[in-house]
């Protein structure tokens, strides 16, 4: 665990960088100048790419491919225990997507998916 001053430093960096990302457009383009087309283009196409990247990052511990590999290697059978490394997360992502397409309610989608995941890893795939 970090020491208290280290943790405070980390939080200060998070606060400063977050404020910086919000202030950039005002620092650069608040004098009535039109932002360059390249900036507008990246501003349009980068956010969906970054969110997709972060989803993969969040699921990096779900060892689906490792599991797939063990299926094909000799001597290992299909066990429920091995599935538990990735199946709860995959199923929960599907629950979030379905809930959100259905109701478009952030609260319902996030809480529904999280509770579902917690039940799965605490009770079902123990």
């Amino acid at each position, binding site marked *: 665990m970090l020491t208290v001053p280290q943790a405070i430093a980390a939080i200060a960096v998070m606060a400063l960088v977050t404020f910086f990302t919000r202030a950039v457009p005002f620092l650069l383009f608040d004098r009535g100048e039109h932002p360059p087309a390249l900036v507008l283009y990246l501003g349009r196409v980068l956010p969906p790419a970054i969110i997709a990247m972060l989803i993969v990052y969040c699921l990096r511990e779900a060892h689906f491919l490792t599991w797939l590999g063990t299926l094909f290697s000799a001597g290992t059978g299909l066990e429920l225990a091995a599935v538990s490394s990735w199946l709860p997360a995959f199923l929960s992502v599907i629950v979030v997507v379905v809930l959100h397409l259905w109701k478009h309610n952030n609260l319902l989608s996030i809480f529904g998916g999280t509770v579902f995941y917690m039940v799965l890893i*605490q009770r079902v795939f123990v």
Partner: protein
Amino acid sequence: MDRKALAAAFPVTLPVLMGYLAIGIAFGLMLEGIGYNFIWAFFMSLTIYAGSGQYLGVTLLATAAGLGTVALMTLLINLRHVVYGLSMLEKFRGMGKRKLYMIFSLTDETYALLSGTKAPAGVDPRNFYFAIAILDQSYWIAGSVIGAVAGAVLPIDTTGVDFAMTALFVVIAVEQWESVKQHLPALLGFGVTLVSLLIVGAENMLIPALFVMVGALLLLRGRLDQKQETQEKEDILC
């Protein structure tokens, strides 16, 4: 603080009240789970004030990440805010000292409210915007403190509550998917990161993924920009 503006802003912010209490509570629970109590939750929500950013912050604190990593990861996750500011340049003009707070508090949800609602007749729009921003952050702080206290007091097993971060990103992705006609950027981000995870590994996967992604998007600019233009023309014709 203008009471009339506050009264007008409150009903508008109700959806954010529900959402922020929920996501804030999940954040507080996660933070308490790695050994940081409600005082930390309070100050993080006061000074950082970013939903996904603070979720990531929990991971960064838990893994004792170096300050460089902290800065880079925070930058990556909040990069989308740059776009929000671009469309708020006009709205925040003439807000004086409060403008600094408006920029600081420009979260996804506040951005959505500011771009989607108009001040009712008889209420100064600037006071109205400021009231929305202040109310939203107070919900966020309240939620995170409640979560941290609940995590410490109630005997609940919080294993898996960190999935709330994944769920939040999935929700944002679904919203983005439905609001744009070009899905190539999202698919590209997904594919490139997956390849990076396989080649580079979980530890250092993000930087190479980001470089390849930006490079590819720059190379595809001709195609994606052109498609956007024809799309807009089609929309006008319809």
